[in-house]
């Protein structure tokens, strides 16, 4: 276990579950060296003994890298059909489960998890996600947000941060990377009045595990937006994914918080407020911004504005 020098007996019940339960996801998949996406998938079956998990995936890195026929990394039932429809597909799975339970043809307790990247969630899959959440299916949607369409070769998405260079927002004489601020999908999900919405980061697996357990335990739709750095997309070294996610959280670009039945809780509050520049300039996708202090200033202003909003919401819902 990382971040712990103690014995299993000293760990929290959640952490013990995480360590003791069998995993979900085999190694040998084709994810890039250093990609952190497999971290959360391994936790899926570990969240509870009370139920089993059936998972669905949008098309994307995680899907293609984990299921190249005749191989599969998935040790739990898993389904993929297309890019933009994972929530609708799993709505059907979950609806069928409810139908079979009602007819007395199914007795097991099952829970349903949907996974997608920011492309399949913020963009092409947004309608399907919104519909599934609004209808109230017992689904947990986990978006692993790496800030661009990484699977197809780093094209910008609506989750791409201001100023990031991607293959469709390249740097040139007239271009300084992505224009405008990223979409705030977590707020859109909050507008669905879900019982549980959270932002998490792959660098803090205790916080992530606790949130996954809460989200999946919750009866009804729930949503987790998970910061998950991409080695080639962010242009960072293969051993830097966890560290980069940590920096993203520590500079308040990606606050860790959860909203339970409308009540906001900030889960991590940096003791020293760091500027975004440390995080931004540790990544190749932003290096051109050294020549664009105006963009950096706008980036910092947006981060500060969103943090202020979050603190205000937390105070308001106390």
């Amino acid at each position, binding site marked *: 276990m990382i971040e712990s020098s103690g014995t299993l007996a000293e760990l929290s019940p959640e952490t013990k579950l995480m360590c003791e339960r069998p995993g979900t996801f085999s190694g040998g998949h084709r994810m890039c060296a250093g990609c952190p996406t497999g971290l959360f998938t391994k936790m899926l079956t570990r969240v509870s003994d009370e139920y089993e998990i059936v998972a669905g995936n949008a098309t994307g890195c995680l899907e293609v890298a984990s299921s190249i026929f005749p191989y599969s990394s998935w040790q739990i039932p898993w389904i*993929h059909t297309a890019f933009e429809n994972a*929530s*609708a597909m799993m709505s059907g799975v979950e609806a069928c489960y409810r139908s079979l339970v009602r007819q007395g043809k199914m007795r097991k307790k099952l829970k349903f998890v949907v996974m997608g990247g920011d492309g399949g969630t913020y963009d092409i899959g947004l309608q399907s996600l919104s519909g599934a959440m609004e209808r109230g299916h017992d689904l947990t949607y986990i978006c692993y947000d790496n800030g661009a369409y990484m699977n197809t070769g780093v094209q910008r998405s609506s989750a791409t941060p201001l100023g990031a260079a991607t293959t469709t927002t390249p740097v040139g004489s007239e271009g300084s990377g992505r224009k405008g601020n990223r979409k705030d999908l977590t707020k859109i999900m909050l507008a669905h009045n879900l019982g549980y919405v959270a932002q998490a980061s792959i660098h803090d697996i205790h916080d992530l595990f606790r949130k996954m357990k809460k989200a999946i335990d919750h009866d009804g739709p729930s949503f987790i937006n998970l910061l998950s750095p991409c080695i080639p997309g962010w242009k960072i070294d293969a051993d830097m994914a966890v560290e980069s996610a940590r920096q993203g959280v520590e500079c308040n670009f990606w606050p860790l918080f959860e909203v339970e039945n409308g009540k906001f809780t900030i889960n991590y509050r940096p003791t020293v407020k760091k500027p975004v520049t440390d995080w931004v300039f540790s990544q190749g996708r932003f290096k051109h911004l050294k020549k664009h202090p105006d963009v950096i200033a706008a980036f910092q202003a947006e981060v500060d504005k969103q943090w202020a909003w979050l603190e205000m919401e937390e105070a308001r819902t106390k």
Partner: protein
Amino acid sequence: MSNLTTGKPKIVPITGAGACAQAMRQINPDVVAAFPITPSTQIVEDFSTFVANGQVDTEFVTVESEHSAMSACIGASAAGGRVMTATSSAGMAYMWELLYVAASMRQPVLMSLVNRALTGPINIHCDHSDSMGARDAGWIQLYSETNQEAYDNLVMAARIAEHPDVRLPLMVCQDGFIISHSIQTMQLEDDKAVKAFVGPHLPYHSILDTAKPVTWGALDLQDYYIEHKRGQEQGMRNALRVIQEVSDDFAKTFGRQYNLFEDYRLEDAEIVLVAINSVAGEIKEVIDELRTKGEKVGLLKIRSFRPFPYEQIGQALSNAKIVTVLDRSASFGAHGPLFTEISTAVYNYASGRPLLMGHTFGLGGRELTLRHIEHVISESRICLDKGEVGNRQGMWLNVRGDKS
């Protein structure tokens, strides 16, 4: 599920859409996912009342689009359920991507398709551009002249689609408004008799079986994709046999015999019209009239367009002198889809060599009257007497500015 009728079939006045909703009630699927679109809306509305009244066990997923409807159907089918949907036109076009996925995953999803013109320009009336466009998606397509046929096809659908030698999705097509909204009398079979005929659904590698976890929808590259597509093709080839077997059993049970196509006064016909769906009714009326005047004319009405029974149709057209095909959809820059299939069947499987003529008609709900059909037959006679089709080939019927 309550209020099952037990007793004799009833003759009822009902629309085509209403008839399909009744079939869905009797089939009692585990999941229905659908999004309303004219002219299939009544199917979804009627079925909703069956759900609200507890007449079915179905979980009805009121999805936000047809794309999500088909996605939810695939998910529910993978979860081991018997699954149905209904749509039309742009609704099915929006499902397009997932139609292929349903077929390649061998999910026996059942669809009631009410044929309507595809948008461009927008139009709500009947033609077959929706289902003909989807002909390569891997779905079994059964067509229906009347509300009775639409109902009967849907009652047979589950047993065909779910047959272990087939395992493919199936759409039952009927003409928008002409059939879907017209009240005709038909025989509504007894609930329990239908339930017994359809039988229980047997799940196949259910994704809810956590003891045997299955990966559905893996990435298939150059090393396996084509084998899986070949398997899908085999299911479709097997469907020719299974459709006939289930149809024969349906005839034994309910007394109405269906085949892969209907031959109407074909035996000695020199002029044969080939058509799909409701226009066959008008054609039969004209044939009966012309037969009294000695014209040797018949009809071959398609029921199974996918799979297409080339050999049987080729043989059925062996004695024809001219075959005139009426397509209710256009393939721009090419002959209509039905004409090309009939040409293939005749060239490869007919012992004779009839003239072949193709016409396009009825796009966007444009009517084809008895007079137009008489004209098509008399033109066919002229071609036959001349021994050539000439510039009549590819004519569009009843179109302003076109001579026909």
